[in-house]
């Protein structure tokens, strides 16, 4: 059962990822990416990690992608123009893709070959109780660091997207030149 679900959602995730890269219109890409996130959340459920699955939907599909779609709408982007220069990027991208795919197949082959018989999947690891207990005892410092990181991101985003008063700045420059 879990295997069938895994392969269904894995296929869905890969198809959505390819469509995300393929589409020229950023809005279609964003919607395909939401499909990838939802499929991955279902894959996390087959891994018995309900907390991560819910956080994936909330943070990625809920917060980040809403922000991305909002920015796409705000900027009113049209479709990408066809690539007219930097044509060698096609070669580099194809080569990189081939190398990474070969690496993926090597990992699959090596892990399948040297399968550890002692590996026992543990369903209790992904439960919210265990994650919460670990988060606020053993891993308290990383959680605090994440909090400071988010605070820095908030301040940085506000400073970045603030509108500078250009007129006043020019006035200062003019005064100095005089």
């Amino acid at each position, binding site marked *: 059962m879990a295997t069938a679900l895994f392969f269904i959602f894995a296929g869905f995730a890969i198809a959505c990822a390819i469509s995300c890269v393929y589409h020229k219109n950023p809005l279609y890409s964003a919607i395909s990416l939401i499909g990838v996130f939802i499929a991955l959340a279902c894959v996390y459920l087959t891994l018995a990690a309900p907390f991560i699955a819910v956080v994936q939907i909330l943070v990625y599909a809920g917060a980040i992608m809403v922000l991305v779609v909002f920015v796409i709408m705000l900027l009113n982007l049209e479709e990408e123009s066809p690539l007219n220069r930097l044509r060698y990027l096609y070669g580099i991208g194809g080569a990189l893709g081939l190398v990474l795919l070969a690496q993926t197949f090597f990992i699959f082959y090596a892990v399948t070959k040297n399968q550890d018989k002692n590996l026992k999947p543990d369903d209790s690891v992904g439960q919210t109780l265990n994650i919460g207990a*670990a988060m606020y005892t053993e891993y308290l410092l990383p959680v605090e660091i994440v909090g400071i990181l988010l605070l820095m991101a908030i301040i940085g985003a506000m400073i970045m997207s603030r509108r500078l008063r250009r007129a006043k700045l020019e006035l200062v420059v003019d005064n100095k030149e005089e």
Partner: protein
Amino acid sequence: MEPSLASYLALSGILFTIGAVGVIYKRNAIGMFMCIELMLNAVNLSFVAFSRYYSDVTGQLFVFVVMSVAAAEAAVGLGIIITFFRNKLSVDVDDASILRN
């Protein structure tokens, strides 16, 4: 019967490959940003798979950290994209060449 660790790692690797190729092919900054999110997600999947199969909660905690970094990246990155669009009226990364001269 459940899928093996290798199949999760293969899915993770394939998604990472698609994301990496996308970062190179895409020319608008928002497309590159979305491909980076795709790569982060692929890595998260391998973390969760290892965490499950080795019965260690650290992997899931690290996924939490990666998600926070992705959220911070979204806030700051989209701020940069909006500022860039305000100055250049485009989000094409080829136009970001003001430091060249």
